[in-house]
């Protein structure tokens, strides 16, 4: 998890099987969470780290 001040960025990998098909599912999402007054107010997922950082206003080389 990365501390971005009022937001955090976490890479979260999820695994599962479909309820009907039993097909395997695996996904890595980059989640930007925003907190205010000790509560989560926004949680948004992105397909890549760069996209998530861009949304969080962080530019990396």
């Amino acid at each position, binding site marked *: 998890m990365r501390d971005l001040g009022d937001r955090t960025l976490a890479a*979260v990998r999820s695994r599962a099987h479909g309820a009907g098909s039993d097909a395997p599912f695996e996904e890595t999402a980059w989640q930007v969470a925003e907190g205010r007054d000790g509560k989560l107010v926004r949680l948004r997922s992105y397909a890549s780290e760069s996209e998530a950082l861009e949304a969080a206003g962080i530019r990396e080389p």
Partner: protein
Amino acid sequence: MSRENVELVGRFYAALPDLRDADPDEDQAFLDRAFRDFFDGQCELRMPAEYPEGEQVLRGRDGLAQLVAMLRDAWGEWRFEPERLIDAGERVVVLVRVVAKGGASGVQVELETAHVLTFRDARVLSVRVYRDRGRALDAVGLREQAVSQVNVELVHRGYDALARRDLDALLALMDPEVEIAPLIAVALGATYRGHDGVRRFWSELVSSFPDLHGGGRRGARSWRSHACRRALSRPRRG
């Protein structure tokens, strides 16, 4: 000196018993130990105006004895769970979760509070209790830094709740107006809003993927320690 103060505070909160487990006959002995090991004789405890008793200042050993008596009168259980100790130079901020149970009502209460402590000669000289942690952090000029720490902790607790599949615990961490946009929803331009929206998303998720599980990406800790500093050293746009 600040490191010694933080250690003193850590030892003090570790020594605090749950009111439920502490024998009332031992209260005086506890106060003796507290003033021998931790408190300055002139120690002052300031309670916030938001508390039912209103703002009040309790001074010295008699004041602390009065507080213990007040707690015993109103509560069957009362304990402090220190969540984070923050070194604020001459002061120490403790983010404290109060876990209590009404003596007569049996109602369970959990409060997120903060204590700001000052010191004299390696003893606690004052404790100011804040119902609002943000105001406590403002008082010591650390709001921005500490808010960041609070948010990291908040998100960790959120993922813990997810791992336990504890929807109620997850909702307790979320603002009533929360907005969540999981990856699939982002692709569709959709957003779930409010606690009801989170419940709906949850229901759809577990019905579609009953064995869903997950976690942080492997190696996230070492990745974080380098990348985090790098990101924080760069200005945020906008």
